[in-house]
């Protein structure tokens, strides 16, 4: 599943960049994401993703690895996790890019998400819709947090 989302933020690029690397703040914008920890500053992080569709609940202990980093411009990351209770795995490849000048920044997310295992039985459409909702809530929370602090 491919996702793309661009958000305009009324904040300078430096502030947005700094916010992304404040792991506690950044992760707290992600619905269902908890227990974020830094394993190796700037390179490796862990968190737990909890999501629910009707009676179906998943909990993915997730490792996030930063694959590429270009100061103030681009981050490429990979997240993967498994829920052994329901026998499902998740893998996300994420490209985050920042553009803009002055007090405006365009933050772009491009994500490739793979869900494997029994959870896939819920159907591609339902899972994609849920992921869309999560990404919408996440980007709105990032925008609000950054603009609210302006």
């Amino acid at each position, binding site marked *: 599943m491919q996702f793309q989302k661009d958000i305009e933020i009324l904040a300078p690029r430096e502030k947005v960049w700094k916010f992304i690397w404040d792991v506690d703040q950044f992760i707290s914008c992600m619905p269902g994401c908890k227990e974020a920890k830094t394993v190796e500053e700037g390179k490796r992080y862990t968190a737990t993703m909890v999501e629910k*569709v*009707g009676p*179906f609940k998943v909990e993915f202990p997730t490792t996030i690895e930063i694959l590429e980093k270009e100061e103030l411009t681009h981050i490429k990351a990979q997240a993967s996790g498994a829920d052994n209770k329901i026998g499902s795995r998740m893998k996300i490849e994420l490209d985050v890019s920042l553009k803009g000048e002055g007090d405006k920044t365009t933050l772009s997310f491009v994500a490739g998400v793979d869900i494997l295992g029994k959870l896939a*039985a819920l*159907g*591609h*459409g*339902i899972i*994609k*819709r849920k992921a869309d909702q999560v990404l919408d809530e996440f980007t709105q929370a990032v925008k609000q947090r950054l603009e609210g602090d302006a």
Partner: protein
Amino acid sequence: MLRRFRLEEPESVKEASEVLGRFGESAKIYAGGTELLLTMKEGLVHYEHLVNIKKVGLNQIKRDNGVIKIGALCTHHQLESSPELQKSLPAFVQMEHNVANVRVRQAGTIGGNLCFAEPHADPGTLLIALGAKLVAAKGSSQREITAEDFFVDAYETSLEPDELLTDIQVPEANRGVAYLKFGYLERPSVGVAVALGAGDGKQYIGDIKIAVGCAGPAPKRMADAEALLRGKSREEATRNLPKAGEIAGRAAQALSDLHGSQEYKEHIVGVLLKRAFHSALSQC
């Protein structure tokens, strides 16, 4: 494989509701089990308590003062073979006859089907078009929920955690009703229901209800598409059908999946709406 659970066997609706209230999220109603046990065997969900409600009654079909009351524990087979329903709601009987397969129809209940709210299910769509009300009980109190308000999202209903669906109430009316579905897997890709009355010497479309299911996360009533047809002459309504189909297709919130792409499902909504409209109108 099924993990261990405790089987609770209440003997009344009140007792079942109390059991649900006591155990909260660790308990689930067990009726036919055709959806629930599959997901439990797959390990997708687990409940420590299954509340078997087969001893609480709720398996009658009655006519009462212009309303057909269907107990939530009626199996699909009971509904497809009911002479009472065949007389009063033949389109509902036809829909039930085509639910899943004979094994599911023997064990699966109408209440279980509605409460599980699997997006690719038939009954909810037709019940919305029929203007049905669903009766939910909690302790000794009851409330009515319209079928269109019952479905919240995929696998989600407006029932509270300790509420039980007890009855489905369908108003009797002089109307034409059609439910059509299309799919190439066992579950349908799209289902469309139309219920309409013909007014003024049968030359005009009277009240009309349209519902679309399976395409999106939950069945939905299509009020904007209905407005293009309600009160119109047969000819004008027929001319408006393609537009009504387009509007209903978009409003269905169709999702791309193994059952078809969003665009394909939207197109099929229009095709089925046209056929269901003419089928319902021919019965008036």
